[in-house]
């Protein structure tokens, strides 16, 4: 049952955020979302007794146990305090928003985002599994992102949202690092297990967690996101960026404090970061002229104070920290809502335009003033209590402990009370900006009144109860905590017990006697009021000083710098020129392989099976090299193509030398079709006019070319001199080609049987070529007029035509001959297919493309499809009868007159290949010829 309560604290808002009212009633029903925090508050209150008794509620469900993931939740005093804050402040903020955005159609969406955030925040404080915590942690960032950028048409809102998300995401990632490190050390993600274990966690992991906490709680130097986050609607600022979300980091530090109780680095880091933030935030807050900016920076400062206290780790400090969490939520919530109401009524948040609102909004003035005074730390308000404790803690650290708090020894070296001085300074600043806030808004007269004062008188009528009541309630709390210290004490004691591990020895009271702390409070008031009176002197200077010194500038300049850097880097190498990319590729290849090859050749041995060349082979090899070089040197398109053809034909000869008749046939045929193809498109290319590269580029190209050639040679050379493993494959093929596959031509048997699957792929490639070419030619703008020479006065050669007529069927018969004998002698589907295509191409050459239609009254595409289906179907046939794909069968049949004929299913496959090749070759050639 308690477990159910915990999960419902998270699920309620999550489900609530999924609720979408019908468009018609959306605006009117939107405030109903407020039921969620109210319900939560009731649950939280119902858990009070348990918490006060010092008990923990824990529940766990397996999530991904193999990853160490359990959805485990736990509620102790610390969590309870935060759930109270989340739901309590939530109630006020939700109700306030209903009035604040009563006419705004986005109200419903705001609520849903707020509920999403609420769920996330509840998850953070209830999670017992570090990963679960991280999940909700990041979810708070996401929801905060959506809420800051809520007014997404404003560029500042978007930038602020991104800044906040970006900086907190850094923290989240570093935290993940820490979590992983913890898991590597302790093998668990469960916080309770880690805490119970009390084995120390490495400082590095601790620091990772701290980075996460600092970013979330806007600690120096990550504080810059918080002022920018003020673009969010004011209820959001009050809720997320004052009362709850920014306290998530504080929560985390508090939660982990027991684990790092004896870690000097931890406390030194926490204390010093907190101190710097405290002071710096105060300075910044004083300079602001925007109400929300002032409050934001004050929040930064106050969070610094809490962090500082958590770092001191003494009883007083820890108690002060917890207490201030509560106080700050009350008065800062009230002040933010005040800013919202003022803006809502007066139309501005600019202190220079505001002023004298007191007569118009007396109630608000009272409430806001009380809240401000609580912030300033004046008695008898809540803020005073925590301020006193703060001073006590600092004094204790500085004077009494004299560096015995090991982590802060550097702060109090030689007994110099640096920490105390800084604390007083910061408190003075707090006093100052608190007074500036309420004085400037309600009491003083506007220094720069707005041009069209729609504000003042108009406002009074509209300041509805709903926009004031939550403020009154919150500042009432701030007052109450001061007047009835035992109430605050009761609320924070369970949390304190969790952090400190023991019940508190001290008791809260307004009057502690004449303590040093009280003296410091007095000093603060004196300093603060003098500063307030003299403020005009230096505030102007301070506001101008801002331009010089700003971490925001660091952020924006860093961002721009980064973008510039990435642009510059991209421009450096992403030139868009494929030539450059090829250069990179080849240079990488050469660079990557030359060293290993160098080492390789240190211990080479020549293989025994190297064959001695014949003289004529040498000559023809030389010619092949010459032909290759001719390709590089020629300036004539046709010579270029013909030289390429020469290389190909010479390759065919080498295939003959190497006893590969099938290859020789294929090579010759392919070369011829390629030549026709090239000649078909050649005239569309511009002439190879000499447009030389700069000498340097040319040299570089030559270098790469030579390097690549050399590298490939060396690579193959290495293969011939290095160690090797003998192959069993050729002997298997030779032994079984006829025995098991029924073919004498082993190459063909490999192609259609042993490795028929390769051939299936090969014809697929081939048929795609025709699809691709048809698409290339069929779509897009049609070509311009041919660019090359056309001799208009020309007529078909009757000699060529009659020759073509005579030879067509002879060549076809030859092709069929090669097809049918393929299994036993050089030939086969591919060779026959190309030969058929050549025969038909020759017809087209002698006549024209329309002549092909007479020869072959169907489309090449259809032939391709039939071929593909035949080949695949032959292969699938065996699957249907329970054998693997492409399993072949052979049968011998007797026919009258024909004698015994061997029929193999591989033949069907080969005919498929034949058809694909015929169709593709013709299809491509025809498509171009007709273009």
């Amino acid at each position, binding site marked *: 049952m308690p477990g159910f309560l915990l999960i419902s604290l998270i699920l309620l808002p999550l489900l609530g955020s999924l609720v979408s009212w019908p468009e018609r009633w959306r605006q009117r029903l939107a405030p109903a979302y407020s039921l969620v925090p109210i319900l939560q508050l009731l649950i939280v209150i119902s858990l009070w007794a348990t918490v006060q008794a010092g008990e923990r509620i824990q529940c766990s469900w397996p999530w991904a146990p193999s990853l160490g993931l359990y959805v485990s939740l736990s509620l102790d005093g610390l969590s309870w305090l935060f759930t109270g804050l989340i739901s309590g402040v939530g109630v006020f903020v939700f109700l306030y928003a209903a009035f604040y955005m009563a006419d705004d159609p986005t109200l419903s969406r705001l609520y849903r985002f707020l509920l999403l955030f609420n769920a996330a925040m509840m998850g953070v404080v209830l999670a017992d599994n570090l990963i679960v915590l991280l999940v909700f942690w990041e979810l708070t960032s996401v929801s905060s992102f959506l809420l800051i950028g809520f007014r997404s048409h404003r560029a500042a809102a978007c930038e602020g949202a991104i800044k906040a998300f970006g900086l907190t995401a850094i923290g989240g990632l570093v935290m993940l690092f820490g979590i992983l490190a913890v898991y590597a050390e302790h093998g668990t993600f469960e916080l309770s297990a880690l805490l119970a274990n009390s084995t120390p966690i490495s400082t590095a992991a601790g620091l990772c967690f701290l980075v996460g906490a600092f970013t979330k709680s806007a600690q120096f130097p990550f504080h810059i996101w918080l002022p920018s986050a003020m673009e969010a609607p004011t209820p959001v600022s009050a809720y997320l960026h004052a009362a709850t979300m920014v306290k998530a980091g504080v929560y985390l530090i508090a939660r982990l404090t027991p684990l790092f109780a004896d870690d000097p680095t931890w406390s030194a880091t926490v204390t010093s970061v907190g101190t710097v933030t405290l002071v710096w935030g105060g300075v910044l807050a004083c300079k602001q002229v925007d109400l929300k900016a002032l409050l934001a920076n004050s929040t930064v400062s106050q969070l610094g104070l809490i962090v500082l206290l958590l770092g001191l780790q003494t009883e007083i400090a820890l108690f002060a920290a917890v207490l201030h969490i509560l106080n700050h939520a009350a008065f800062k919530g009230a002040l933010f809502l005040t800013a919202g109401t003022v803006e809502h009524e007066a139309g501005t948040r600019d202190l220079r335009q505001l002023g004298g609102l007191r007569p118009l909004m007396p109630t608000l003035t009272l409430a806001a003033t009380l809240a401000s005074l609580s912030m300033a730390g004046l008695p008898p308000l809540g803020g005073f209590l925590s301020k006193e404790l703060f001073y006590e803690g600092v004094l204790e650290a500085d004077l009494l402990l004299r560096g015995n708090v090991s982590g802060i020894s550097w702060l109090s070296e030689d007994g110099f009370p640096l920490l105390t001085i800084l604390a007083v300074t910061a408190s003075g600043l707090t006093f100052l900006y608190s007074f500036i806030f309420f004085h400037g808004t309600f009491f003083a007269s506007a220094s720069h009144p707005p041009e069209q004062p729609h504000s003042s008188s108009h406002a009074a009528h509209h300041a509805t109860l709903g926009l004031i009541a939550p403020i009154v309630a919150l500042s009432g709390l701030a007052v109450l905590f001061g007047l009835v210290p035992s109430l605050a004490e009761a609320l924070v004691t369970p949390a304190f017990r969790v952090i400190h591990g023991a019940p508190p020895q001290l008791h809260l009271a307004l009057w502690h006697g004449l303590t040093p702390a009280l003296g410091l409070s007095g000093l603060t008031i004196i300093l603060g009021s003098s500063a307030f009176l003299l403020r005009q002197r230096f505030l102007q200077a301070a506001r101008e000083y801002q331009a010089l010194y700003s971490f925001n500038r660091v952020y924006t300049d860093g961002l721009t710098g980064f973008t510039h850097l990435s642009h510059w880097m991209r421009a450096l190498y992403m030139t868009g020129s494929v030539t450059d990319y090829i250069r990179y590729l080849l240079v990488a290849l050469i660079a990557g392989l030359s060293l290993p090859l160098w080492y390789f050749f240190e211990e080479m041995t020549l293989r025994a099976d190297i064959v001695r060349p014949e003289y004529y082979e040498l000559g023809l090899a030389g010619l092949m090299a010459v032909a290759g070089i001719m390709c590089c040197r020629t300036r004539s398109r046709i010579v270029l193509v013909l030289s390429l053809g020469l290389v190909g034909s010479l390759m065919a000869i080498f295939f003959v030398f190497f006893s590969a008749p099938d290859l020789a046939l*294929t090579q010759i045929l392919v070369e011829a079709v390629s030549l026709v193809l090239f000649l078909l498109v050649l005239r569309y290319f511009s002439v190879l006019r000499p447009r030389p590269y700069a000498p340097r580029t040319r040299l570089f190209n030559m270098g790469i070319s030579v390097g690549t050639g050399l590298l490939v040679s060396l690579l193959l050379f290495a293969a011939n001199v290095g160690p090797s493993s003998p192959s069993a494959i050729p002997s298997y093929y030779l032994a079984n080609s006829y025995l098991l596959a029924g073919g004498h031509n082993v190459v063909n048997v*490999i192609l259609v049987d042993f490795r028929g699957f390769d051939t299936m792929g090969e014809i697929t490639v081939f048929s795609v070529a025709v699809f691709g070419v048809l698409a290339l030619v069929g779509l897009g703008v049609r070509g311009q007029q041919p660019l090359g020479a056309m001799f208009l006065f020309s007529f078909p050669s009757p000699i060529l035509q009659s020759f073509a007529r005579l030879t067509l069927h002879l060549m076809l018969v030859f092709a069929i001959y090669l097809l049918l004998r393929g299994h036993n002698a*050089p030939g086969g589907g591919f060779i026959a297919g190309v030969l058929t295509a050549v025969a038909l191409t020759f017809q087209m050459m002698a006549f024209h493309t329309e002549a092909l239609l007479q020869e072959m009254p169907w489309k090449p595409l259809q032939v391709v499809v039939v071929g593909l289906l035949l080949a695949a179907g032959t292969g699938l046939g065996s699957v249907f009868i329970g054998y693997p794909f492409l399993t072949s069968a052979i049968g011998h049949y007797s026919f009258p007159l024909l004698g015994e004929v061997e029929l193999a299913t591989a033949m069907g496959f080969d005919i498929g290949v034949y058809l694909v090749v015929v169709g593709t070759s013709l299809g491509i050639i025809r498509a171009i010829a007709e273009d």
Partner: protein
Amino acid sequence: MEFVIISVIGVLFGCGTYLILQRHLLRVVVGLSLYSHAANLALMVSGGLKRGNPPLLTTDAPYVDPLPQALVLTAIVISFGMTAFATVLAFRVRQVYGSDAVDELAGGEE
């Protein structure tokens, strides 16, 4: 013999690279063809260039290794398909883009 062919392969690769790095698209396509020729030769060498009969069981042993031949055949066919496509592509580029200068095809990286 292996080393002769390997040298030729090297030369063809060098020439191919040189052509691929040129500005004229036609040269690039021819360079790619040279590449595939060279690669096919390399594949042929992979069986070792033993002198022997073609792997037709109607002739007498010794036979050469039939596997590289089958591989080369597949490679020839594939590279033929690729070259055909590349050729037509290049010619369509000239038609549609109005240029067959590779350096004028730069851009597209924003």
